[in-house]
């Protein structure tokens, strides 16, 4: 597929009915589709389990990625090991594909900084960004470092469509344009920023057209079609690797769940809208397609579900058994070397903890 900077065109291969809308290129083969499908089902299984954990008081506030699995999966499969990923907080799928195990993701959401101590592929990735859009400027910095060193890598950053209202987003995109940075920006347009619908977030017809402000390429993809997401990201990543500059991808999807476990979306959005969105969600459409292509059957489905449950469950059990980190960790990673005046405070914290445990 050819990508242009016409921002209004929404790329899609497989539509909401699981039917082919435009023919899949060779590289989007059965292997790819099956891997995508398995990943999405795995992530959905995980996601539901974490929500359940939260409901039973075993988890901190959690941001579900329900409905956005195709975006994270497409990115995770398209991004290279050498690239740097700067996530927002619904990138469970990408993190999973970049070797951040579920157990560690649970540790993060469960309120332990060690959940950000990634190893392997994600060793240079950023942790989830809570202050909306700030990761986009960090990505521009990572991409600058890559460009300064002349490496064949890129920075891929994600955010929500709400994040595109923040200065960080534009400042970074503008830099990406003028410095021709090896950077890919993927906006998860899930139509809502907590209770604020897309329509009152911006007057722009699309998020993709914001790329025009920076003179970079921008376009929409159907964020519920994992093949379209993958293809778009692959295009943008290749372009970045070739030194051809930055890309803004608007992945159009829908937040099927509450904003977080602390939210109740029924307060502000209509059932009908959510029901309609369920008809376009990414997992079912790919299953339909795979079924129709005879690449998948009920037995495989059941086996997959079982495998997912098992993998998730063993991560959950490991998470639940994690001891609290030592109190000294509160101090020992603040600076490379602890300044003298903090030694006393560290000691005080240890005593306080000892006392608390004594009680």
């Amino acid at each position, binding site marked *: 597929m050819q990508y242009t900077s016409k921002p209004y065109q929404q790329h899609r291969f497989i539509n909401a009915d699981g039917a082919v809308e435009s023919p899949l290129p060779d590289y989007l083969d059965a292997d790819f589709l099956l891997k995508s499908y398995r990943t999405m089902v795995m992530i959905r299984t995980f996601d539901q389990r974490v929500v359940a954990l939260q409901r039973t008081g075993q988890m901190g506030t959690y941001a579900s990625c329900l409905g956005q699995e195709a975006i994270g999966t497409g990115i995770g499969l398209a991004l290279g090991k050498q690239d740097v990923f700067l996530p927002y907080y619904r990138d469970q799928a990408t993190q999973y594909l970049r070797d951040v195990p579920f157990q560690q993701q649970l540790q993060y959401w469960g*309120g332990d900084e060690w959940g950000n101590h990634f190893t392997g592929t994600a060793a240079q990735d950023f942790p989830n960004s809570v202050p909306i859009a700030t990761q986009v400027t960090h990505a521009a910095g990572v991409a600058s470092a890559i460009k300064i060193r002349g490496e064949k890598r890129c920075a891929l950053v994600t955010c929500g469509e709400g994040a595109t209202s923040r200065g960080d987003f534009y400042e970074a995109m503008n830099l990406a344009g003028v410095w021709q940075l090896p950077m890919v920006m993927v906006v998860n347009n899930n139509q809502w*920023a*907590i209770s*604020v619908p897309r329509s009152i977030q911006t007057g722009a017809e699309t998020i993709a057209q914001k790329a025009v402000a920076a003179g970079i390429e921008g376009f929409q993809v159907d964020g519920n079609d994992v093949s379209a997401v993958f293809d778009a990201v692959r295009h943008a990543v290749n372009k970045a690797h070739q030194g051809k500059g930055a890309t803004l991808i608007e992945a159009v999807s829908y937040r099927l769940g509450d904003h977080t476990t*602390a939210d109740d979306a029924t307060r502000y959005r209509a059932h009908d809208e959510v029901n309609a969105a369920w008809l376009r969600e990414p997992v079912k459409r790919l299953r339909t397609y795979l079924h129709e292509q005879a690449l998948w059957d009920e037995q495989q489905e059941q086996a997959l579900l079982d495998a997912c449950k098992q993998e998730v469950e063993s991560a959950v059990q490991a998470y639940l058994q994690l001891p609290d980190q030592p*109190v000294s960790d509160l101090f020992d990673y603040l600076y490379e070397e602890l300044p003298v005046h*903090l030694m006393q405070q560290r000691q005080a*914290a240890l005593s306080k903890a000892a006392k*608390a445990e004594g009680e």
Partner: protein
Amino acid sequence: MGMPESNIASLDKKHSPGDPATPHIVTMIDAINMALHRAMASDSNVVVLGEDVATNGGVFRATVGLKERFGHKRVMDTPLAETLIAGISIGMAAQQLRPVAEIQFMGFIYATMEHIVSHAARLRNRTRGRLSCPMVLRAPYGGGIHAPEHHSESTEALFAHIPGLRVVIPSSPTRAYGLLLSAIEDPDPVIFLEPKRIYRMVKQEIYDDGVGLPLDTCYTLRQGEHITLISWGAMVHETLQAADQLQEKGISAEVIDVATISPLDIDTLVASVQKTGHCVIIQEAARHCGVAAEISASLQEQTFTELKAPIARVTGFDTPMPYLRRENIYMNHADDIVTAAMKTLEAL
């Protein structure tokens, strides 16, 4: 129209302001909601804006019912942009509106700082009174609620250092109601920080009478003879608990809620310490260059001869608030205050 018990404003019900003579038994978050309703009803220049404040009524429900009652022109969901929220509030205020803007959590307030420091705090001064900036920037703040990262900050000291601002922190439903009304009526910019840990901790009887509380005074919550305990925000509760514990030991502690940390009513604090000769200042925030330091320094300057022991500070560590599993270690509790108080008294 006396309001029956069942009409007492409560969390998720739309607040209907009634006869100011009828008591409402409410939490702090309800009191804030009541004050917003009252302020909007009595002054059509009052507008409310922020992320999720209109349709959703605020993530903590502080603004519930406002949009339905006062319309979308006066209760505005903004795009997700804190710099913008601060900036447009200044523009609105310069046009004689009285914007009450919400920053969803204090951890996201930093993007407003340029506007607050360089403009809100200076518009009147810069124009020699021609333009002014009667805005309120509300933000839930503080830790102890097991929230995600950046949702537990106490960085009130940053604003307290800026001339031209008022920085106000309620610590009870009554003071939340009265101080917020006064903040909205105030002709100058007010940073209004709401200790969210106690949003729903206690209920108090409040009359929705539209009467504000003064912003230029500290509030003495308990008289005492032996030691002065000074605090603000959520820590006022641990401080009161500590005073109870001290009482059991026969020590009578005076407890003062600073409430407005800038400009500071130092006189009330000085008078108390002159009386007691002992003082512990309790702040949730990190220690270094916090507000407790200013209070300690000022008190020391003015009560040197009366001081019987060093003024002590009970504060957070100079680390970020830990992620939730270790949050408890960061927070101070009543016995930490008692320990500090006893140490001070033993220095006698």
